[in-house]
């Protein structure tokens, strides 16, 4: 257990620190921006796949927070962020047992994301009424994650030994 706590990497400690910081409101603008960024989010192993798909998309220039955090008011953004952030830390440390088998955006997330699509794409939307369905992703299924539901890797011959290296079991499981 002790070994495990020490094993938490530096970024995780920063993460915990930052969110503790947000709660008492003493952080710099720069740190906050960092915690919206793809580099920061993908520092968690569990975020690797979404980061990869995002990097390969037309939205690669954005920060994760541009979509995943509310932007209507500053207060809202950071309250949400602190809550969501603490949730992530909780799941990755004490609450591991409760991490869902497959990550899906929660309903709350969906709403936030949808608002963000709308706010960035106001021009397009004014130009043509674009609200036929419940959410943008009813049609834009793969924005920005999941374009090509399989990575190119699947369509190459497997690398010898890769099942040992990458996943599962006691072999180098990371």
């Amino acid at each position, binding site marked *: 257990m002790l070994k495990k706590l020490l094993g938490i990497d530096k970024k995780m400690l920063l993460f915990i620190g930052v969110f503790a910081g947000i709660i008492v409101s003493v952080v710099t603008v720069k740190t906050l921006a960092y915690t919206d960024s793809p580099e920061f989010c993908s520092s968690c192993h569990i975020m690797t796949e979404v980061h990869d798909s995002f990097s390969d998309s037309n939205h690669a220039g954005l920060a994760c927070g541009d979509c995943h955090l509310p932007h209507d008011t500053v207060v809202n953004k950071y309250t949400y962020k602190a809550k969501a952030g603490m949730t992530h830390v909780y*799941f990755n440390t004490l609450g*591991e*047992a*409760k*991490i*869902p*088998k*497959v990550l*899906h955006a929660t309903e709350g997330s969906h709403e936030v994301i949808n608002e963000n699509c709308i706010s960035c794409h106001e021009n397009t939307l004014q130009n043509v009424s674009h609200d036929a369905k419940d*959410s943008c*992703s*009813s049609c834009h*299924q793969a924005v920005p994650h*999941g374009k090509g*539901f*399989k990575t190119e*890797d*699947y*369509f*190459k*011959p*497997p*690398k*010898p*030994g*890769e*099942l*040992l*290296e990458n*996943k*599962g*079991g*006691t*072999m*180098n*499981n*990371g």
Partner: protein
Amino acid sequence: SGSEEKATSADELKTGLSKDEISNEAFKDLFPLQYDSYKKNDRMEDTKYSGSVKRSKFDHDKEPYLPVLFNGYGFATEYNEDRGHIYANEDVRAIARITDKSIGSCLTCKSTAVPHMIEEMGDDYWGGSFNEDIWPKAEAMGHSPIGCSDCHDPQTMDLRITRPSFIKAMESQGIDMSNPTKNDMRNYVCGQCHVEYYFAADNGEVTFPWANGFKPEDMYEYYETTAKEQGFEKDWIHNVSGTPMLKAQHPDYETHIEGPHGQAGVTCSDCHMPYDRVEGGKKKISSHWWTSPLKTMDQSCATCHSNRDLDDLKERVLNIQDTHMEALHKAEDISITSHYYVNKMITSGVSEAKIKEAQEHIRKGQWFWDIVAAESAAGFHNPQGAMDSLRVSIEESNAAINLAIEELTKKGVNLEEVKTEIEKVKKAVYDEKDNFKKKEKAINSYFPAQQPAPKK
């Protein structure tokens, strides 16, 4: 960026197991997560049309008339819903279809000992006596039911194909097997077993009829040409109509490959082995619990269909299956009628030539529904394709019936009486409570057996 430091040369990683390891338990300590997941294959739970409970396919809510349709063959005696991989050895041992005449080939898709036996024994494996030689030998080797070594190289855990029949059959279709992609392998490991097969006439070797393609019509053409040329004509003679028949088996691979998912590059493993988070979420593995994906839709389907409501999606699957099963039952029913009409042709002294002509239609008609019934997803693996096959089945069974009507009428047979007798005999089969005895009710004095009593 820190990941480079961690990188190990994959080529050098080895499990430390022998290359000939065939016991699942040997993998347990090295891969406890996959092993635990594998252990879930002992669970028994049914879905609307499929599931993992050992139940007879003759049950009233499944396909109660199969003992008519397979009359004279082992499949009319005992035929069960399939269940977890873990039960493969137990089930092949217990099934009444295994007799003292059964050959080694029957073990091919059940036991981890098979690849070694093929290597050691060559053709003697296929044709060997199941009860006397093959099974005892597999037990002595310490085999497992369908296990790690069937799909993985025990030293590197690379996916591999261990059943040569698959490679031969793919090559017979001109597919290059020298350098499969990772995606291919996620289909291929399953395609070793979840496929239509027959035993070659000369040596009993498990053979897949794929040289002309994967569709029901392609395989049928193969049976009518290549297989016949090589001496394989039939699986058995039908006891009601005297027809030389083909029995279709679990063409999950063929059906899936031609269906909407297969054509889109989706593989068996994507749905049946979705990524799963275990150990309280810490680790992600490929699920090794092969079962109905309707039990794990969140993992199996939502990854790709992330914008769909899962209840709606399930509803959609059930709609597809309902439509499918209704059509299947209809096609089976017309097939039954064709068997009894031809029985009546025989007992009414219609000419050999006409009987033979009708039997050819019966054989074809049954093939085209059986290849659909034998597939395991109640139509979901290829909804349009399965329906198309049933359409052909109905055409063919009807062609037999048309012939019979003409000839029987010429002989002055009262067709109303024949129809009434068919209803009676079907009811007798349906009402018989002992599934093992149903087949006996398919035959009576009005419709006498057309085959010497099935040998024991």
